[in-house]
């Protein structure tokens, strides 16, 4: 396999840059038309309303222009993508049933270790279908549902239909319309009233076939007073042709509930990562997005929180790292549509080797959202003179009784900091590493331990060769 080595990383050493031979049960043809949409729905044995939903979304996708702002998306060839691939006939329930090559893939990702450490149920996505799912029994007793989204549609049709597509309608944007037409896989989580899950729910996602689009669809419903922490870690092998990831995540956080959604995204550097993530927070509810973006060719992802009832809170923490040829355009949106709502956005971005990283966001305060507060803080670190940092915050304030602040700084690693560390006997590259780790520390410390370790290790890998 050609090693373009886009990050300045030794590909052989790059643990996540492996791939397995393709071996699939069914493979749809490239491109998209109504017949493929019908076929996907038919293959999945879906009810008529879902088929109609997909076709409606497909129709909208065709009509909707690509967004004019942000990065250039015109290089995506929507006709050169497989919209649906089914790796095995049905989801399996135990580790042993998994195909050997998939097991090998997961071994390298460290899933069994995660099991041994008694982590939460692992929903692992291999290509377009969730193939491995393990839900801890005690949670089943509590009434928690943690399924792949396709199974949830079959097993909980009414619950599913009540919420699906309500937070992100297909008409929201072109990529959401595409996802709505061809979605496959993803996680479905239902947490009953008052249930607080103290161990995070986790899923690993992978893309593993040339030109396979990943269109997973995640739906999380937190009933009043509940708590859940969902962790999605994405690592992808390196490929030579471009790939598209257009997921949709919908979250409903009801009265007094709290939901935390953590993502560590490390797509290979040819993936377009265009994700619509949105949560609705009701009275006194809290929604937290923690978003780490390292991989991909282009990431455009703006997790949003609509605070629709008084006392709702939103927190968005975002880390972006852009190396050679990468454009990280993450951010966040907080919509204050009710009085006494609060939001905090913290963004940390690092650009090196000609990469481009930044923050794009929106703080919107609707009339009547009195007593609302919002604070946005963006820090950027540029490690060489070929890289670029962008900050595009937008604040639309339609209410008088508010307090809104925004601060951003862009800087380099200061010579004083380096000199201090080196005077203490730390070598220059290690010192650089320490400073960058310190820079992202406020966000890393919010991650579960394994992810904090993984993120630090990934950053260390990305930092290799950045000195001298």
């Amino acid at each position, binding site marked *: 396999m050609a090693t373009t080595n886009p990050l300045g990383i030794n590909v052989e050493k790059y643990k996540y840059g492996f791939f397995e031979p393709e071996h699939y049960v069914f493979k749809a043809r490239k491109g998209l038309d109504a017949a493929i949409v019908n076929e996907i729905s038919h293959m999945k044995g879906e009810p008529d309303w879902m088929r109609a939903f997909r076709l409606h979304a497909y129709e909208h996708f065709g009509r909707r222009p690509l967004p004019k702002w942000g990065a250039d998306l015109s290089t995506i060839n929507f006709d050169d993508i497989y919209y649906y691939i089914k790796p095995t006939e049905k989801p399996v329930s135990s580790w042993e049933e998994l195909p050997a090559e998939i097991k090998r893939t997961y071994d390298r990702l460290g899933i069994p270790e995660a099991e041994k450490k008694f982590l939460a149920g692992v929903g692992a996505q291999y290509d377009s279908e969730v193939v491995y799912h393990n839900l801890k029994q005690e949670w089943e007793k509590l009434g928690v549902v943690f399924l792949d989204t396709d199974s949830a549609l079959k097993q909980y049709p009414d619950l599913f239909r009540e919420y699906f597509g309500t937070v992100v309608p297909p008409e929201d944007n072109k990529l959401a319309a595409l996802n709505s037409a061809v979605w496959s896989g993803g996680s479905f989580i239902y947490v009953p009233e008052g249930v607080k899950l103290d161990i995070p729910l986790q899923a690993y996602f992978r893309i593993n076939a040339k030109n396979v689009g990943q269109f997973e669809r995640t739906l999380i419903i937190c009933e009043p007073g509940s708590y859940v922490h969902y962790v999605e870690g994405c690592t992808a092998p390196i490929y030579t042709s471009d790939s598209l990831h257009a997921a949709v995540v919908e979250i409903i956080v009801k009265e007094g509930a709290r939901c935390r959604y953590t993502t560590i995204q490390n797509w290979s550097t040819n993936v377009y990562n265009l994700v619509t993530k949105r949560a609705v927070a009701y009275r006194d509810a809290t929604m937290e997005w923690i978003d780490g973006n390292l991989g991909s060719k282009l990431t455009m992802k703006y997790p949003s929180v609509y605070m629709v009832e008084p006392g709702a809170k939103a927190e968005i923490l975002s880390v972006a790292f852009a190396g050679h040829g990468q454009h990280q355009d993450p951010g966040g949106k907080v919509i204050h549509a009710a009085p006494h709502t609060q939001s905090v956005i913290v963004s940390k971005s690092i650009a090196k080797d000609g990469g481009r990283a930044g923050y794009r966001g929106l703080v919107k305060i609707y009339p009547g959202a009195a007593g609302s507060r919002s604070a946005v803080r963006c820090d950027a670190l540029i490690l060489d003179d070929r890289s670029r940092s962008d900050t595009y915050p*937008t604040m639309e304030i339609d209410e008088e009784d508010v307090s809104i602040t925004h601060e951003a700084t862009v800087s380099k690693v200061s010579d004083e900091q380096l000199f201090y560390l080196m005077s203490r006997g730390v070598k220059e590259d290690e010192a650089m590493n320490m400073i960058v780790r310190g820079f992202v520390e406020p966000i890393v410390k919010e991650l579960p331990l394994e992810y904090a370790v993984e993120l630090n290790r990934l950053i260390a890998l990305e930092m290799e060769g950045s000195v001298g």
Partner: protein
Amino acid sequence: MTAQTPFIALDRSGVEALSERFAEPRWMREFRLRAYAAAEALPMPTTAEEEWRRTDLSSLNLRAFHLDPAVPSGPSARPDLPPGVIFASLAQAVRDHPDLVREHFMQHCVRPEESKFRALHGAFWTGGVFLYVPERVDVTVPLSGAVWIQSAGVAVFPHTLIVAEPGSKVTLLDDFGSMAGSWEAFVDPVVELVVRDGATVRYVSRQDWLAAVTEIGIVRGRVGRDAQLHTLLADFGGRITRRNVESLLEGPGGSSEMLGVLFGHNSQHFDLHTLQEHRAPHTHSDLLYKNAVKDRSRSVFSGMIRVHQGAQKTNAFQANRNLILSAGAKADSIPNLEIMANDLRCTHGSATSRLNEEHLFYLMSRGLRRVDAVRMVVEGFFAELFDRVPLPGVRMALQQDIDRKMVQ
């Protein structure tokens, strides 16, 4: 309104009539015609464009306006000046100093092809100020120019061009105003500030249209090595004001201070776009825009700091503070950064809040009426900015404007 014969239409024949009327040299007439052709070819911006998202021009019908070359516009006083300094209306300068005007007028700073409104300006400019300061000449008296509109349906294209040669120093105060009324007018001003190496230019613009004026304009400065540009833009009037204020820092050691004051009432709409463009190393920019909005007025601050590759050791600051005085008023803030160099310090901050009730309560507990307490707090809001203006007359005038806007 009835179009009388001296009025000139905004079309190609109007361009020719205008040039005829001022007995312009052929090059200027050709310049105007080229600009008009560009204006014809360029589309009217729509809200589908990110730059124009927040200002809707669909109700602007340029055909409804006409030119009136009699609109007073130009230098408002002519004090004794050091030898070599040229301070004249632009039309006069075209006659007396054609080479200088030809070298600088809409050539290398603002150009007609940039947009529909720049092109229209190039075609229909009238009046305005030409200020030329020779090398190492220090003009110690602040100079002033003015534009005054008093007739309905008029379209005005005033042009201010300052060329400050190396090591020179000058201050210009531009005043834009109109008679009060509900009648409409259209203003498309262009201000070009050429600040050569080591020169210092201070430019103050105060806009107080009391009629329903739509203004779409630009102030752009080019700042050379070790040069300094100070701009202060004060906006109080008009129905729609859309302005770009841009500093291009092109030589090492150049610096730009950009100050802005805005106070909206009723349903006024202000859409300000600022640019701090660092193209050379060791450049410095410092922006502070303070906006107060009441009633149903709306302000938009959209600021950009762009640091080009190689512009190392840059210092760039940008601060936008908004004070919302009524439920129903709106203030949008969009402070952007695009940074392509790494050895720099770049910071921006934005804050939007309402009157602090605790401050008001404190003042009222000391015996002030609420209305006076509010005035005091608003004065305090702007004081931080006024303190940075070393022109006592300007400070006082702006203070009075703020007081008037409070009760307007």
